[in-house]
């Protein structure tokens, strides 16, 4: 194996684990009738070994990364950005496989997710995300986009007694088909003009075009917008957001943090596309992203006010936070990308922590669906309520929690666009934060306590997540330095 192929090891590693889980359990299931997700799918020791090897592998790639970018197999780029993105995807995505934590496993069982294929499918989706962040030509990007989402469709079909998931999955599948065909058409238009699908060739071509105002710029531009549209649809940005509420509502609580991870890979992929390939069109796309960001933020903030179901609420707040990320990207500067990536990492982390705690709660062995079901939780479980409240305050961007700092960095990058936009954005952020306060007051201010049970021990390593959100400001320089190091080659 050549040196360059080493950078493909994380994907291979995930694929190996995925096949291991899949094949071993296929044999196991064929021998017994017990097809449920159980520790036997992957023992705790195996899980932690898997986790540690993955972290070490990506960490060592980061540390020993050469100065220049590495292109393996003619289509997979390895840079500090891609390694960092893979690390984030791996680190934040792995807990949701349902094989390590007892809590998440129990929560999956309560949602009637008993299929042993579940973790393998999520791992497939993670491989898709890995490919997405390191794709260096449109063919790989297309494969990555499909590989990322296809397992999620299959997972939604695996839920027993959840027909709405299947229905939404079918609708989303249909819409996804249309946008992917647009992607292919856009890529074909670009190929027609450039004669290559490689990002570097296209970037060079765009550079030449911008200097010479040559023929073909229109086709490239149309092709680019078709690609952009695919990303906007996949990310559920306004006005392509119609699927998000239904999909969130019909999916599982545990899928929401995982979908935030998928969005992270999409944001990284989109940033690479915008800054590495189509940077010569920056004047055009920054305007589009700005208005998409403002509209998504406004819709997300206002829509979240009227939601009483937890996943619907998070679907709208997701849109709001996505709007913030787009606004960061719309600055057209690397600092904006840095702020956006930081923002999304913290968002993913916070959503993960919140849903971990939320998944611990049940009434009559049923998952909680509505916000008002947790009334008075603090009476019975003050510690858990406090951790949830901290997470929500961070999501509401209240200082000194991590969410506030991330918002501040986005605002800073937005200053160049004009003060009025900063003020508008802040107004939306206030509207968006109100519903978080609503959840907090439901948790705390009730004379009675809901008959809630905790299904498993919540005092796991997740307890440190809200604490990290509180003390984020101590480490933000180091985290920003890491991000800035990652984005050096962008």
């Amino acid at each position, binding site marked *: 194996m050549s040196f360059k192929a080493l950078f493909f090891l994380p994907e291979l590693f995930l694929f190996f684990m995925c096949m291991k889980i899949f094949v071993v359990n296929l044999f196991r299931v064929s021998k017994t009738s017990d097809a449920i997700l159980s520790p036997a799918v992957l023992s705790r020791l195996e899980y932690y070994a898997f986790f540690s090897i993955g972290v070490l592998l990506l960490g060592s790639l980061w540390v020993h990364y050469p100065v220049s970018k590495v292109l393996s197999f003619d289509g997979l780029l390895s840079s500090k950005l891609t390694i960092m993105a893979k690390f984030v995807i791996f680190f934040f995505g792995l807990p949701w496989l349902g094989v390590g934590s007892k809590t998440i496993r129990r929560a999956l069982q309560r949602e009637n997710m008993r299929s042993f294929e579940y973790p393998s499918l999520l791992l497939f989706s993670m491989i898709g995300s890995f490919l997405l962040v390191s794709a260096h030509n449109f063919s790989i990007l297309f494969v990555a986009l499909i590989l990322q989402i296809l397992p999620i469709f299959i997972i939604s079909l695996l839920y027993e007694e959840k027909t709405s998931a299947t229905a939404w999955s079918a609708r989303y599948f249909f819409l996804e088909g249309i946008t992917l065909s647009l992607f292919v058409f856009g890529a074909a238009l670009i190929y027609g003009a450039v004669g290559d699908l490689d990002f570097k060739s296209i970037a060079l071509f765009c550079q030449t075009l911008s200097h010479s105002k040559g023929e073909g710029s229109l086709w490239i531009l149309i092709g680019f917008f078709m690609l952009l549209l695919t990303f906007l649809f996949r990310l559920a940005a306004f006005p392509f957001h119609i699927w998000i509420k239904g999909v969130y509502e019909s999916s599982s609580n545990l899928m929401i943090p995982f979908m935030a991870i998928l969005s992270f890979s999409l944001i990284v992929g989109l940033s690479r596309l915008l800054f590495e390939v189509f940077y010569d069109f920056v004047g055009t796309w920054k305007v589009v992203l700005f208005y998409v960001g403002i509209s998504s933020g406004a819709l997300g903030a206002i829509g979240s006010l009227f939601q009483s179901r937890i996943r619907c609420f998070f679907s709208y707040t997701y849109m709001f936070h996505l709007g913030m990320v787009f606004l960061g990207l719309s600055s057209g500067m690397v600092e904006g990308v840095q702020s956006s990536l930081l923002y999304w990492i913290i968002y993913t982390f916070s959503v993960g922590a919140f849903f971990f705690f939320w998944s611990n709660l049940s009434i009559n062995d049923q998952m909680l669906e509505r916000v008002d079901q947790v009334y008075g939780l*603090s*009476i019975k479980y003050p510690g858990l309520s406090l951790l949830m409240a901290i997470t929500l305050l961070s999501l509401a961007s209240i*200082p000194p929690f991590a969410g506030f700092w991330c918002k501040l960095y986005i*605002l800073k990058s937005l200053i160049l666009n004009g003060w009025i936009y900063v003020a508008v954005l802040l107004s939306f952020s*206030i509207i968006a934060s*109100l519903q978080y306060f609503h959840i907090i007051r439901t948790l705390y*201010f009730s004379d009675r306590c809901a008959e809630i049970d905790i299904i498993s021990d919540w005092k796991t390593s997740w307890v440190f997540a809200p604490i990290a959100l509180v003390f984020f400001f101590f480490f*933000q320089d180091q985290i920003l330095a890491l991000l800035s190091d990652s984005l050096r080659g962008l």
Partner: protein
Amino acid sequence: MYLENIPFLSILIFLPVLGSFFISMIDKNVSPMNTRYVGLWVTGTVFVMTLFLALYMPCQAGFHFMDRFVITQKLGLEYLVGIDGLSLPFIVMTAFIFPLAILASWDKEIKNLKFFVSLLLILETLVLGSFCSLNLLVFYIFFESVLVPIYFLTSMHSLNNKLDVAFKNVLYTLFGSIFLLVSILKIFEVTGTFSFIDVVKFNFSYAVEVFLFLGFLISFIIKVPIIPFHTWLPNMHGDSSTPISMVVSGAAFKLSIYGILRFVLFLFPQALQEFAPWLQGACLVSFLYAAFVAYDQKYVRRLLSYLSISYLSFSLAGIFSLNSMAMVGGIFHIFVHSLLFPAAFYITGLLHMRLNTDRIKFYGGIGQVMPQFSILLFLICLALVGIPGSSSFIGNFLIMGSLSKLHISQGVVSILGFFFYGVSLFWLYRRIVFGVITEAMVRGLKDLNMREKSIAGFFIFLIFIVGLVPSFPLNFSKFFSKEVTALLKKKGEVK
């Protein structure tokens, strides 16, 4: 000096939050009184520490007891704290109110006492941190974070439609914070620093100064509040319990006033001179309107909150007149407000605790069954209205005299405002103390116990002692007024 060599100020700021960690570790089975004792010891220690600060603070101008460390180099943000003649009285008053608030909740049945005391301690840290911050963004963080404990405290122990009140407070605070954050970011864009010490030396262009001035001002006057941004405060006091009203009126909402004095007056002198007459007019209208509206209130706390708005509006009218004497009076008035209104909320809260209602019509004839209470309430009412010898007399005299000298119409408005203010107050007193007892529950009321009398007496003692020997707050007020006047003179125009 020895105190200058240790991070005394940081210890002072963060001691309450450490106390709250300690409280959270107290075992469930331990008597709830221990939580109160811990809270009292911590807040008491902080108060004693502030007295040390006051005793050992050097007489020179500038900031003292400064501590700093860099939080993030990326933003150029550093934790920078220090105190001067302006912040010291605010710090002392804050530290004074918190132990009394804990004492005021001594007999009260509180559901989640550990949480309550912890929140009070966290709030104290945040308020002290705001008063000591010399970095604009750090000030914003402390200032904005105050929202969280206040939200929990008002929601936890409020009386009627508690959730909506807390929610309204959140909404107003967050709305106000937009302007503040945008202005702070703009300052950073223009000057490249968040440090107050550096920003104060910077000369902004007129347009930028007006933009920043309005941003800061709107944010702070929403939280003071003055009319028409006031609607959340009467609701909040009306639905909060006594200790929370004391803390809110005596310490937490002084932050906005402090913000006006520290930032609006010092950083934007050109814009201040331009807008001062308008602001003074708005404050006088607010003073008159709030005093008038107070008369018609049916609930004690709501009435007191309107009087509080009126009182603070009058103080601000004095400050915005930019006349040195009126400014001294205005600042003195603000310090005294931290004594008077917590005292008023405390003493009326004692009635509320006994009768479980805040409605004035249930209170008639209290004087027959609670004579000691009636005397103490009368003394507090006298102090509130500013009888000679009481602490607010000096402020009233200085402001009213200076305003009358500036323009007769201002004097007329001041006198009219005080007329309504006094009528509202003594109409409240009459309805509580005199008249025929109509409610059976009033007949069975017991007069104040020793602890209650001691706390109320202590308040009254301080109110009158400050009135008779006003040198401590008055010196600081004079010092501050001198600095502002000098700054305005430097800019070329002073009245």
